[in-house]
């Protein structure tokens, strides 16, 4: 029974880390309908940039973080302006493939600029793990969870009450109507990409402080897909809630099923969940159901 508490806590905290990445994905999808397949590589790039700022250049933490955020904003603007703007009216598959090309490019650029393939960020959080009952959880996970929730609250408030946030939601709903109101849609796309890159940067910093900076960050991005599907592709609330659910399922399912079946079944659980969700509630727990009319 003591294990149950440990599994639950680990699952929830690890799941919140997935939620972070999922938030970035949902943001881009919600405002422009593009599936950002380069998200994993963007996370990798920003982690390396943080490493460069903090370790190679040696700047203090507050300066390093601000530089990373600025870089993320700039990169988001560049990507949208030069890569996605020319493809505005094209079929969705071309957009997805262009993000794929972008992913390869970023991967190459990362190897180009930082030839060391593995690095560790300096310790950002205290080392001692926190005891909750009989379970232990390291501080990094707790901080990641807290920051995820904070970001979620900020984003939700922004989209609800801030004028630009409302405009972004409107763009996701009907681009032509927004254009008819006199708001340049391209500016909204820029903004959403910039924000998504900032989210990716924050997610990258948190995840790489847990496990170091490696190419594995890209695969963690894949886990975020299952979070996004479970929660609904266009719902922030869904991303935040589905993250811990997937983390819990991994943890509990892995914990109790592994002795019965194969080791490593933990990896498959998110994908099995996806298939089940597809059958039961295809648009996710909180996603908007698409109603088609002829």
């Amino acid at each position: 029974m003591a294990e149950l508490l440990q599994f639950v806590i680990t699952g929830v905290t690890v799941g919140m880390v997935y939620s972070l990445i999922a938030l970035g994905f949902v943001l881009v999808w919600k405002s422009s309908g593009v599936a950002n397949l380069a998200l994993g590589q963007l996370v990798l790039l920003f982690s390396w940039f943080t490493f460069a700022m903090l370790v190679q250049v040696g700047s203090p933490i507050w300066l390093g973080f601000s530089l990373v955020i600025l870089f993320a904003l700039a990169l988001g603007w560049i990507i949208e302006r030069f890569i996605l703007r020319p493809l505005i009216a094209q079929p969705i598959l071309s957009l997805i493939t262009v993000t794929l090309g972008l992913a390869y490019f970023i991967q190459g650029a990362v190897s180009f600029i930082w030839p060391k393939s593995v690095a560790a960020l300096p310790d950002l959080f205290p080392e001692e793990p926190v005891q909750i009952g009989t379970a232990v959880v390291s501080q990094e996970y707790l901080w990641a969870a807290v920051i995820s929730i904070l970001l979620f609250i900020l984003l939700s408030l922004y989209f609800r009450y801030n004028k630009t946030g409302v405009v972004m939601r409107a763009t996701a709903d009907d681009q032509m109507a927004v254009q008819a109101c006199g708001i340049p849609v391209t500016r909204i796309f820029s903004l959403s990409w910039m924000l998504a890159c900032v989210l990716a940067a924050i997610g990258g910093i948190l995840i790489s402080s847990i496990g170091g900076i490696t190419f594995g960050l890209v695969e963690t991005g894949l886990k975020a897909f299952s979070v996004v599907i479970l929660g609904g592709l266009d719902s922030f609330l869904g991303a935040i809630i589905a993250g811990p659910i997937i983390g819990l399922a991994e943890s509990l399912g892995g914990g109790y099923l592994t002795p019965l079946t194969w080791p490593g079944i933990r990896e498959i659980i998110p994908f099995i969940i996806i298939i089940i969700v597809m059958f039961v509630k295809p648009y996710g727990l909180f996603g908007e159901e698409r109603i088609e009319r002829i």
Partner: protein
Amino acid sequence: MNVDLPAGTRNYSYAKDMAIFRTKTHWAWLLVALVFLFTGPLYWGEHWLSVANLIGITLIAVTGLNILTGYCGQLSIGHAGFIAVGAYTAAVLTNRLELPFLVGLISAGIIAGLIGMLFGIPSLRVKGFYLAISTIAAQFIIIFAINHWTSVTGGFMGISVPPASIGGITFISQGSQFYLIMAITAIVIFLAKNLARTRVGRAFVAIRDNDLAAEVMGVNLFRYKLLAFFIGCFLAGIAGSLFAHWIGFMNAENFTFMDSILYIGMMIIGGLGSTVGPILGVIFIRMLQQGMTFISPVLENTFSSLPAGFTTGIGPMVFGLIIVLFLILEPRGLAHRWSLFKASYRLWPFSY
């Protein structure tokens, strides 16, 4: 104005109207291409023959994907998983059960098709990117099952595959495999082109354009969507079987998610929804990849002191850059450019 045929060609019978190779020039080019292909093994080295074999195998798989995604509109980013199913079926049947190669080939296709149908069932409820995620899940579950079903598939250690053999002929050298693979590829492309022109093909296109309208017109969505998955994955299975015999050793690590994405990329760059699209896309991407393997050695040899990350990074960077530039300049793919070129050629010197 129809610019598919040269000016002055009139069709006076149904057979002529439906012919793929209609004019004498078409037949001449076909003959030249066939001669070129079939005398290839005489003067191409092992290296280029193996590249040609790889192109043929990929072409079969991408043609299947084109039928599924290009013609029927069901986005599938898990194709590498279905190819893996085909490859392992062929490997297990020819290695463990020692069945002949052709039995392995056809069973690989059928089993991959059936599994494809199974994972295609969500297509009845969801569309677009949601369906794509379901196929991504299919990819991972299939690879997991292959890795852990050790008694049958050899698990992580992999399974070796005997060379293909029909009757008494064993296909060991790249040249002999070339004939085998090209023959099968030609049959597959011919089937795909004709599929597009039949009732089934028209149903697929109707589903892609507007599936509710298609249903209203009487196209049975359930049946045709599953059929699309079956055909697409059947071809993936056949490609998998040929792949297994070509490499000789099967390991689930050969079929990654990045490969699935790459197949989609090949299809998009070639041009969705046309038969010649996959051909152009596959040749383009595979040759580009071969170019990438050259770049590092050449750069290292010419510049003796490059910064450390230069050669590691330059390959993927150039690859990604080319894909991005290509899509920005021609989002509808090489097939579109090709048809524009043909049209301008026919109308020259008049521009249109």
